[in-house]
């Protein structure tokens, strides 16, 4: 197993509704999707978003487009319109989720490295 940033396997977009933020996380390849399902769990996301997400995280699955939707309550400092954050909508949270470390089995790691992606700590 090798550890990569989620960024190497998936892309993401975040949006807002009130005090709730949602992040669509989409695997670049269908065979990366099971890694998302196993490792991008609500518990791990909550730990990763420490200090940001105060409420519940619900994960929905969209297998046809090999994506998950992370719905994070209490994530926007009391709501977009009252928040003191520079990013009241949490649109930059898509970049934060992509900093999650994920463990990748050797064959997929080799595939990623062929594309020039590097495991965490071995970047040039």
């Amino acid at each position, binding site marked *: 197993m090798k550890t990569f940033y989620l960024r190497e396997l998936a892309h993401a977009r975040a949006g807002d509704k009130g005090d709730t933020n*949602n992040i669509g996380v989409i695997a*670049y390849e269908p065979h990366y999707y099971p890694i998302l399902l196993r490792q991008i769990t609500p518990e791990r996301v909550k730990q990763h978003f420490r200090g940001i997400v105060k409420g519940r995280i619900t994960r*929905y699955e969209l297998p046809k487009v090999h994506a998950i939707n992370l719905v994070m309550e209490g994530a926007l400092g009391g709501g977009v*319109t009252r928040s*003191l954050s*520079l990013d009241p909508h949490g649109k930059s949270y898509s970049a934060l989720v992509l900093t999650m470390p994920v463990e990748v089995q050797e064959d997929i790691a080799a595939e990623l490295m062929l594309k020039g992606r590097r495991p965490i700590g071995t970047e040039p």
Partner: protein
Amino acid sequence: MSTEPRRTRTLRIGAGASYAGDRVEPATELAARGNLDYLVYETLAERTIALAQLERRKNPEAGYNELLADRFYSALPHCKKNRTRVVTNMGAANPAAAARRTAEIIRDLHLGAMKVAAVIGDDVLQYCLNNADPLKLMETGQPLSSLEGQIVSANAYLGADVIVEALRQGADIVLTGRGGDCSLFLAPMMHEFGWGEDDWDILGKGQTGADMVECGANVSGGFFADPGYKEVPELWNLGYPLLEVERDGTIVVSKLPGTGGIINRAICAEQMIYEIHDPANYITPDVVVDFTGVELEEIGPDRVRITSGCGKPRPEQLKVSVGVLEGWIGEAEIVYAGLGCLERARLAEKIVRERLKIGGVELQELRIDYIGMNALHGEASLPLKEPPYEICLRFAGRVREKRGAVKLGNEVETLVGKGPASSSIPRKHVREVLAIYSCLIPRGAIKPQIMVTEVP
């Protein structure tokens, strides 16, 4: 039921805007060479309409989109020539005034006979004030009457049905206030193809396509580029998207040849999930959409076919956005650079905290960010490998009275000369908090009306 002959050929709907201040030129280009049947401008975020209500209070002829004239002067000549109808929520808090201004523009441009429709009735402020005890906030479950600030606006999300009626009455341009964003796109489909208001499956398909373009260029290359990972050609020349809709609900999202940007499966997937919660139950005023079965297929350069969306019966109640004046926010920033900049910024933070205490400023909340280290993601940020060369220290505080917000800015400003060495000149800013809450009201509480102006 209408007896008009129904369309069998492809319907082309362009997305000309996705927020109030959106760029004008790409929409005009769509109008000029998109061979469009409809051009839709979506310009209302949750807060935009509440801000517009405040404008209207100051001036009874204001409260509609500030770029309406810019957009219409450049696009309407093409729309008239190409027989493209326009549907837009640029009416914001004052669709009737927007229609009067639009009629002036049509006369000024000598475009000849056109019908302009204003949709009114989304303003439910009085209803909400009269029912502030029984109405509950969706965010907290507490009654509307429990809000501490001053309620200044309440606008319901109208559905596509009233826009369909305006189109049936022959409107060339439909100006609405608050409505479902997607409804602006769904209405032309319903009107042209004669889709039934309770044909949930076809409405679900239509709304899936609408959802794809209601954020405009976010599906055609905007908010997507990440060099080395997701490349977008000629992002500066971003083309805005259009829908090619078939009568059976098959939809292709595309853009004009010769424009920059990209439309592929990846960006369509991002956009489909954007700002939804349960993908099996995306609630709109017209239909509850199920995205979980949607298939996205690349059928050509910058062309993605969307199939297998479906729908369920629409909700019995309509969502209302309530605008509430809740106090003030003061913000200020100061930059330190060079060796030891972080230590000087930390000292500046300590000084401002102490001086706010000395000045007796009581903030409801104070936030301090180190821009360059942790401003967006706080303690979840990846740590820096070495000290930053420069750092921007930002203060933001929320307070009931304006003078507290002003005082915060002043205490940051006086760091120059009375704080640590070697900083930039601070910038400061004070704004009023217009918070938005949501509640649900029965459909029956709303009586939408259509006002048609005929320009001879």
